[in-house]
């Protein structure tokens, strides 16, 4: 008889692990990926493929280089790749997409210590870097059944309300925009799945979107357009709920969502960019350590013993 194992409790753990969580996120992103192919054509799949491929490869390569344990099997690089692709216009040159993927994985994620350690969302940060570096291609929108060559937000900013797509088209995603952000229906399906699977809680997305709705109401904007345009749904459900770069506790998530919503409308209504979701999330990412400190839960000590 071999020796009995001796170890500290607990002797069982839940079936949840990092890979399973990332797999759930991938599953939740699939409806939007399918929608992007339907709306923008097969090139959408190519962009997603390049981003995912380069993300996974650069994670593998970097870890190999610095002799860290390989983590590509946790699937987090796949998630980053999909999210980055979702934030790019379908006509993006592939080498630029690849460049963005390397920035996301190597600079934003790995250099800060890998999964769980990065303070900013890799996909969002890479997108912002790309917007600065490749401002031309990053804002060339391909429009399904081309009606207009601008995104609804750009149209609204210019006051061209008559050329806006209908609410239904907006909901289904038939509008200009990044390839994974337009189909609100598909994104909501993914969000509901993540909440049911308890990968995310409702706090951040609901507060984020709710804040934008309330502010739109106050400032007399067209609420459905504000909610369904830009990357709001994608950002609120998939980016503002990233574990590493957002607060872990309930009230922290509420403050995070509120801040994102406020900064988004601030940029949308008064800023130079028509879209503010990415910046708002990045700014709140930076504030996350302070929010976490502010909302830290108090141990239940029941007062000191006299």
């Amino acid at each position, binding site marked *: *008889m*071999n*020796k*009995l*194992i*001796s*170890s*500290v*409790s*607990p*002797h*069982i*753990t*839940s079936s*949840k*692990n*990092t890979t*399973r*969580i990332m797999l759930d996120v991938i599953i939740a992103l699939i409806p939007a990926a399918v929608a992007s192919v339907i709306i923008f054509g097969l090139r959408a799949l190519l962009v997603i493929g390049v981003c995912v491929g380069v993300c996974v490869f650069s994670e593998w390569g970097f870890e190999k280089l610095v002799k860290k344990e390989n*983590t590509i099997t*946790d699937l*987090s690089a796949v998630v980053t790749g999909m999210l980055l692709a979702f934030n790019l216009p379908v006509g993006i040159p592939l080498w630029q997409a690849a460049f963005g993927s390397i920035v996301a994985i190597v600079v934003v994620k790995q250099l800060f210590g*890998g*999964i*769980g*350690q990065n303070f900013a969302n890799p996909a969002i940060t890479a997108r912002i870097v790309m917007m600065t570096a490749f401002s031309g291609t990053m804002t060339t929108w391909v429009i399904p059944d081309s009606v207009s060559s601008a995104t609804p937000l750009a149209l609204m900013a210019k006051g061209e309300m008559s050329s806006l797509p209908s609410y239904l088209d907006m909901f289904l995603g038939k509008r200009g925009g990044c390839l994974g952000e337009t189909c609100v229906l598909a994104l909501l399906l993914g969000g509901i799945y993540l909440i049911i699977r308890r990968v995310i809680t409702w706090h951040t997305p609901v507060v984020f979107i709710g804040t934008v709705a309330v502010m739109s109401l106050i400032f007399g904007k067209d609420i459905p357009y504000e909610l369904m345009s830009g990357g709001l749904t994608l950002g609120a459900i998939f980016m503002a709920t990233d*574990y*590493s770069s957002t*607060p*872990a*506790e*309930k009230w922290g998530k509420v403050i995070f969502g509120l801040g994102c919503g406020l900064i988004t409308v601030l940029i949308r209504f008064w800023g130079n960019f028509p879209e503010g979701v990415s910046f708002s999330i990045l700014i709140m990412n930076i504030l996350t350590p302070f929010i976490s400190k502010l909302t*830290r*839960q*108090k*141990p*239940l*000590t*029941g*007062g*000191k*013993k006299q």
Partner: protein
Amino acid sequence: MRFLKLRGTHVPHKKNTAGLSPVRIPTPETVVIPMSMHIGRPAEVKVKKGDEVRVGDLIGAPTSYISAPIHSSVSGKVLKIEDITISNGGLVPAVYIESDGLQTVSDSVKPPTVTDFDSFIEAVKQSGAVGLGGAGFPTFAKFAVKDIISRVNTVVINGAECEPYITSDTRTMLDKAEYIFKGIEAIKKYTGLKSFIIGIENNKKDAIERMRSFAEKTDGVEIKELPAVYPQGGEKVLVFNTLGKIVPQGGLPLDVGAVVINVTTLAFIAEYLETGMPLTEKCITIDGSAIKEPKNVIAPIGMTIGDLIEAAGGFSAEPSKILYGGPMMGITVPSLEAPVLKMTNAIIALDEKDAEPPKTTQCINCGACLNHCPLRLDPRAISLAFKLDDPESLKALCVDICMECGCCSYVCPAKRPFVQTNKLAKAKLRAYLDKLKEEKK
């Protein structure tokens, strides 16, 4: 109105044996009875090699106040007295007794004379009863409180049994309900306490019903259904969910006017008052993936785990890990030669697959650990402070109140070993505080 809700987590129930009344298994050829099955100093051996002993004979006498007497669980001859290794790796003297198979009861076993508070406490002390928690806190000490009536409002009776697999308390509630209530009557009579709450997880409908049917006929007993969320049986969680009070840091339930006693311990005390037979046997749930026939058994204290499982039907697979108690808080059994202890309520044997430790990965900051801690600790921050050797932070993070329930490790997708770290962190904090105290002097 209570706004605060204690968190926890859902663990699989696996109460495979809840419907099985315990069976008495044949007496083993030898038993090994360690002299330390309670918190505090080991008992002093009162027999020597070659002595004849009978069931219930005193073989170990307490050497300090917080201690418990130890009795023989078989009749037969003392083979030897030798040190054995216990779960924490320490050595304690143990009495090996060869059984004659007759189970002749000692003449010393007769109902104790109990007339008042002091004689009641003395009887509970002589019964050898200890609490079920791993530490084995002597039961009498919980009641040996000066002015008990003014300090204690409620006796909380723990029938939660929140660990997976274990059903021995459930069986006590079903099979020995009358003794639980006799125990309540005895406490009422000799201590003057009037209010009792029995807390039971709501996945044990039969037990709740049975306890209710008795409670209806008894004054001052409330049956409290608890959510089937682990760890309802944790003392602090139980006190909060029955009384709405939080046991203060570094304190006892007594500080919020409560005494907590386990259902099985209570039923045992009632039986002892009737028969005078001290604690020499236990109802034990035997289960787990390496067990052929999961069941409840009644086994003598000191029977080796190997003999016990053999007598209960044997292994279905090579055991890789065997536990005293359940999988959430159980302690690993060092070897098949290790004995059944006073605190043993279950023996869970896991096969290779179930025993394999999960692979630990990097924290992904999901927050599950801190969002599931019943006491709202931050296990990640504790681990970090421990790694950085920062006892001041450990103090601020209140690691000392951690009850080692394991919820945090259970839910963590990265499988961080928090209970292990917290144990070490507690020790570090204790050492630090002791040093501070000394320096002050």
